[in-house]
């Protein structure tokens, strides 16, 4: 087990691992997305209170879920980079940031598009919305930090520390709807013993979350592979890899 992990912490083996894994994750994401979208738009019945507008849940909840899940990945990869100083974990941490920021942005905008017809307001300074907005700023701060510091090692370290401090925001987002009695509705699926959602509505939601997870893992690996090639461009294995690429030289 450990030998295996150590092996894939080497950039070249990581590159090979990504080449094998990413296409399958991408295909899985595609298939799950098609099934999930069918479930979201056709299979699931309209909500008795919210009508068809509730279908926004199928892009909103997976996005919000991913925004927090990706942040935890960023923080863990950042911490691993701090402890073991591995290039691969730094590359993974950096690759999480734009994906996480995208999903946070989507959670906020789709939430806004759902809030307008249901609450009558695009935005309210509710605890859930505010803590999710702070998450977006954490991602943007991390990205800004990465482009502000030229030295990659330094940037990775500073980013990891920022990410770890920001972890405190994650339980705040998660429990905000329980701790504060606000406009945002309570949890839908986290109480797995008794979800407050009908099975016909729940199944597409779970499929969409699975699709978003596969999508994230495929793309975080692709992004990290790009980082690795950039960093290792003068190494022998990248030179050999470039030689094997098809395409006429100019």
């Amino acid at each position: 087990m450990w030998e295996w992990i150590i092996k894939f912490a080497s950039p070249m083996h990581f590159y090979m691992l990504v080449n094998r894994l990413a296409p399958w994750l991408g295909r899985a994401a595609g298939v799950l997305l098609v099934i999930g979208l069918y479930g979201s738009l056709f299979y699931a019945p309209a909500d008795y209170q919210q009508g068809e507008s509730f279908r926004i849940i199928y892009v909103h909840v997976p996005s919000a879920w991913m925004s927090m899940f990706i942040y935890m990945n960023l923080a863990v990869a950042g911490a691993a980079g701090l402890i073991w100083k591995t290039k691969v974990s730094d590359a993974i941490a950096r690759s999480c940031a734009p994906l996480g920021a995208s999903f946070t942005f989507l959670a906020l905008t789709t939430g806004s598009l759902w809030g307008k017809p249901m609450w009558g307001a695009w935005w309210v300074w509710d605890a859930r919305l505010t803590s999710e907005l702070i998450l977006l700023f954490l991602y943007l701060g991390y990205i800004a930090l990465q482009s502000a510091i030229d030295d990659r090692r330094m940037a990775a370290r500073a980013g990891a520390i920022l990410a770890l401090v920001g972890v405190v925001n994650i339980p705040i987002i998660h429990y905000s709807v329980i701790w504060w009695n606000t406009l945002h509705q309570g949890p839908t699926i986290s109480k797995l013993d008794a979800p407050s959602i009908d099975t016909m509505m729940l199944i597409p939601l779970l499929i969409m979350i699975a699709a978003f997870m596969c999508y994230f893992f495929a793309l975080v690996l692709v992004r990290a592979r790009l980082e690795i090639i950039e960093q290792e461009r003068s190494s022998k294995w990248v030179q050999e890899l470039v030689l094997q690429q098809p395409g006429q030289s100019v």
Partner: protein
Amino acid sequence: MNLSEFLHMGGYAFYVWTSYGLTAVIMFLNYWLPTRREQQLIRKLKRLQDSKSG
């Protein structure tokens, strides 16, 4: 249910389709931009190598 009814989304068409559309656009960009950058990088490295080897 016919197509126009489906597109109408019970009067919530704007909110529902904007949400799905925005999600699709952002997820597509997150796939397309890094994939394109990787191809460009490999092409650039190949050019550098060719010019070095003469």
